[in-house]
């Protein structure tokens, strides 16, 4: 059986679950910033999906969570700090690039964490 992407309710639900749990855990800054790697991993183990679906659920869950949070904080701040950081990092002062890079980090790390979890389960036929 080919493992191809099929947008299912399960994908969407695990995406929201990953995001929600990551956000809730993230409220406790005593825990490390990468705690979502652990939670994504376990969510993927619990809710078996095709690996590609799992990757996307985890990637979009974290990537979009981060994007939304950042867009809110950044616009409330009128890009004051993001512009400065985009000058400290070699981004030529572009806060847009900074937002993209940040979201990309969440996307990739969240995705691979979920992918790893999904590959631990025994392969299931859909």
């Amino acid at each position, binding site marked *: 059986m080919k493992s191809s992407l099929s947008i299912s309710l399960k994908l969407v639900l695990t995406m929201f679950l990953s995001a929600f749990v990551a956000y809730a855990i993230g409220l406790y800054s005593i825990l490390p*910033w990468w705690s979502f*790697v652990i939670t994504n991993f376990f969510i993927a183990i619990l809710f078996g999906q095709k690996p590609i679906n799992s990757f996307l659920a985890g990637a979009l869950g974290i990537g979009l969570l981060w994007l939304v*949070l950042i867009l809110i904080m950044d616009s409330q701040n*009128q890009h004051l700090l*993001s512009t400065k950081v985009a000058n*400290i990092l070699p981004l030529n002062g572009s806060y847009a690039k900074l937002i993209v890079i940040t979201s990309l980090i969440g996307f990739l*790390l969240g995705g691979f964490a979920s992918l*790893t979890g999904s590959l631990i389960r025994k392969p299931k036929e859909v």
Partner: protein
Amino acid sequence: MRLLSLLVSAVVTIALLIVLNTQLSIGTTKTPKLGYFLSPQQGFWKNAEKINDNFDATILSSDLKGNVDVYMDDRLVPHIYADHDEDAYFVQGYLHAKYRLWQMDFQTRVAAGRLSEIAGADKLSIDRFFRRLGMVYGAAQTEQYINEHNPIMKATVEAYTKGVNAYLKQLAPADMPFEYKLMNYTPEEWTPLKTYLFLMFMSYDLTGRSATADLQLTNTKEFLGYDLFTKLYTNQQDSLDPIIPKGTVFAKPSIIPIQPESADSLYFKKEGSPHSVASTQKSPEAPDKNNGSNNWAVSGTKTKSGRPILCSDPHLGLNLPSLWYEVQITTPTHSTYGASFPGSPAVIIGFNDSVAWGVTNAGRDVLDYYEIKFKDSAQKEYWYNGKWETTTNRQEIIKVKDSADVIENIAMTHWGPTMFDWHYQNPQSKGRNLAVKWTGHNASTGVETFYKLNRAKNYDDYINAISLWKCPGQNFVFASKNGDIAIKQQGSFVARWEHQGDFIMPGEDSSYDWKGIIPNEENPMIKNPLRGFVSSANQKPVDPSYPYYLGTAGSFPLYRGISVNKRLAEMDQITAEDMQHLQTDNYNVFAQVARPALHKFIDPEILSPEANRMIALMDNWNLYNNENEKGITVFKLIWDSVENAVWGDELAKSPIPLTKPESFVLLDQMNKDTNWVIADNIDTKEKVETLKDQVNLGVEKATKVLLQLERAGKLNWSNFKATRVSHLTKIEALSRMNLPIGGGVNIINATTDTHGPSWRMVVHLTDEIEAYGLYPGGQSGNPGSPFYDTFINYWASGKYYRLLFLPKEKLMANERTKWHIQFKTI
């Protein structure tokens, strides 16, 4: 297949995680942990403050005796109303921490020699310098003294400490200041020692220049030979307008310091011995030579209102966050407003409902080196007064990030710590064993001076408050509502014979020791002078009839004081606005004298057309260092170039940097002796250059640079000067660069590229107190806050804010009052 995929996926996940959670090295710096730094719930995004945020809050603490109300005005200045003094200082600590935590931490780390702990081995030299200089030692002396003898100050500093720590206890890691996240470390608890370390830092900033200057001057004397040295490094300042007017009669001195008989051979004419240099460490930059300030007070006889006006503007490095934090503190015992130091309780420069005060640096020499003869490299014994004395060992441990601890073993002598020995040398110390004696090492209750000034009601209270002041020596200016004005240079000043302490002194016997500390009553001071004003601008406090030696002329800028006194003498019917104009005055008194002096030698016939064009620009200039003037740029580059031409070849032959002679020395010679032989460039053996040759040569060399500047559009003064207010890490993105402001060295508006009026204050002692002030920064130290650099534009354009100083009910109702922070005791 699946197992392989699993392994690959796991490896990628872990690899990503590691890269994003590690500081990556780029050159000498490290990036932040990128995943952490960019994460929305913990990283820098959390410091992106909402514009138009609401700062109302309620804070509960069992450390408070009563409730405290804090009202924030629209500049984010807190007005603290407390029923108990200690509660006010608790809240001051809390607010300092809330708005300036990282700065407090960073500045005390520098003083404590703990930069390597967060920044790595690169900073080790600097840390070792401060440890060996005795910064921690001095702070510990003060802490011990206050704990044993001064219960009120102990309680004050402890209350302040509790306030800082109360803020820290409730601080979630996600809300840590930006710089901690950038540099990857975390805040630590505040202690009273840190407050004393901060005050040591100010002592170093204002008196520690000697630690470098004394070595450099000794090396210069040895290099040039004493006879040539005395010609170029004279202390005679004929045009001096001292702080205490010329002709004032001074009391007979109670100490008569006499130069030891051996001084000629062992001190003045001593030649440098060829020591091998064990290792050379980088030194931190010596405190800026321009660290200084202006202050003055005009009496009611010269003001429009008949009430005195007091002004104070300290000149320090221009940094973000600013050294200063504005605050009002009102308790049943007193009500005061002014600039405070994050790191210390009380108001430092300010006013209360009866008096106003301000400070400028005295610049007196209070730090000396003594050369030590150790018995051997174990350094347990040293030769003193005919026998071997024992040293004690002081161990300081320096933690180094990503590396092993470094242990400093410092041999403590009766003079003070052995700063340089075979363990630690820099290019200036030339292999010598040197112990350092510094008034900064002695316990001082400096914080009590401010505590008392905050509560002073009259002249007697002011004198009483400053009588405790030891280090760094300051010129305290004073004015009161009831009409008194006064100025006193106060500190622990050493009773010196002429030139004692300019150079390294022999440390093998007591004959070169300090002869005593000048009693307070003999320190220069004046009250209600006939001329109707008092002032200081770091010039020598007295004329040569004063019976004690002050230090080398290089420590006492000559020209700003001349400008200030000339203007104050001329002025009448003075208003607060007139004083604002004076504080921001750009007139160049030095150029007024130097330009015609240059013209005695400038020969248009031998100069190129472009050089003549530049000379014309300089001549058409109105002598004001205003931002758009070009003539000042031309003048400055020409003068610097002429100085280089005259001094250059002599000094450049030295492998280590030497002290440059003062500008007034060259200026005096230009006015007196057009055939001065020192101008001879010894590299060109055929002819003997005269001053005329050197001046015209200097003009041509300057012209080359000026033409380049002109082409780049940088000939006008503010573009050339490029004044900037730099973040403490020097990161440009966090700094404000290229500010449109004039001024400069020797100017009342003493703004150079990195240095200038770090606080400007004008206080008109009317019944309501009409006060104005600002500093080039903002009340919030958070680069993500709109309050980070709020005042900089106003400051650059010479404007001022009206300072709100009101009783609680009036302040609550004021239209500028925006937020309320309630502290409640539980």
